[in-house]
């Protein structure tokens, strides 16, 4: 029974791994970043449900799959309902709260959110703010993160403050990855195959010789060739 049970656990782990990746993809990319309260609940429940049929071979896989799929579907339904109704959105996710306005802390909000002074200072330090009077506006987001807007006179100087700068210029994108042209990137940066061939001719190399090639919309490029042609 030992070997059989190990194989059962092995196959179940594969099945549930694939299903969980599918489910996380289905819930969307938001799930991977900061959690809304509902998303946190879903993630905790999913991780627990997925491990049950893997650990206990007495439980059929269906007993794990049915609740996982049901919860994921409910989460997607709720996110669509939240999208169309502000009331539902506020009910599920809450609403952002202003914690500091014009450098003055709203103590009633602090009490309401059960925020200690230490929590507040920790969050401000995390945003590179060390003096509370420098804050124009601090908002507690529904994810629990604090967004801080520093007073104009305390904001760091930017290039835009001292001179007119060209606002364009996207960062360079990966065009060739290990000898293969990345699909769709050339059109994104406004180039085509002809341009790529011209660059390769100029650099005196084949596409297979390239390890990494990046380029931007200004047609600036950088090529890293493969070591020893491998």
């Amino acid at each position: 029974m030992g070997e059989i049970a190990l194989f059962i656990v092995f196959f179940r782990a594969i099945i549930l791994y694939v299903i969980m990746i599918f489910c996380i993809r289905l819930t969307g990319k938001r799930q991977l970043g900061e959690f809304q309260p509902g998303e946190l609940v879903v993630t905790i429940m999913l991780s627990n449900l997925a491990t049950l049929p893997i650990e206990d071979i007495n439980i059929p896989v269906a007993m794990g799959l049915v609740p996982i799929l049901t919860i994921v579907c409910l989460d997607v339904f709720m996110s669509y309902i939240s999208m169309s109704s502000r009331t539902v959105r506020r009910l599920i996710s809450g609403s952002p709260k202003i914690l500091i306005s014009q450098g003055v802390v709203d103590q009633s909000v602090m009490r309401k959110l059960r925020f200690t002074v230490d929590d507040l200072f920790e969050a401000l330090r995390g945003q590179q703010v060390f003096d509370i009077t420098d804050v124009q506006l601090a908002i507690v987001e529904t994810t629990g993160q604090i967004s801080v807007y520093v007073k104009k006179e305390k904001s760091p100087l930017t290039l835009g403050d001292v001179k007119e700068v060209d606002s364009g210029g996207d960062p360079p994108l990966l065009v060739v990855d290990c000898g293969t042209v990345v699909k769709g990137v050339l059109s994104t940066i406004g180039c085509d195959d002809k341009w790529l061939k011209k660059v390769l001719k100029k650099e005196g190399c084949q596409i297979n010789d390239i390890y990494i090639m990046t380029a931007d919309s200004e047609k600036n490029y950088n090529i890293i060739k493969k070591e020893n042609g491998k």
Partner: protein
Amino acid sequence: MKRLFICAGIFLFVMLSSWMSLRSLEKVTKELDSAALACIESYDKDDGRLYDRLDELMTCWEAYNKKVSFITRSSSLEELAVSVSRLNDLVDNQGGDFRSELNAIIFRADVIYENQRPLPQSIL
């Protein structure tokens, strides 16, 4: 919107498959129960058809085991399997153990079915 349609499809599929598994469980439970009752009847009447009925019960049990293992804990099925495996040994005994083992099979199969039904006491 594509995601919403996929989820609606999955949700319907889960609901439908849950309902179908319950119907399937009801069907195989009834078959197993009636096969066990037929064995009891033959045993009580001593009509000479007991071994045929026992073969029918074994066939029903195999179908039951195959289907139910997908939806219930294997420990519940193990208890039933033990009862079924004892039947061949008990059939020639006259102590009434054969009859009580058949009753136990009916009872356990009914308990498995009742536990799968979405009744308020099961859900809460």
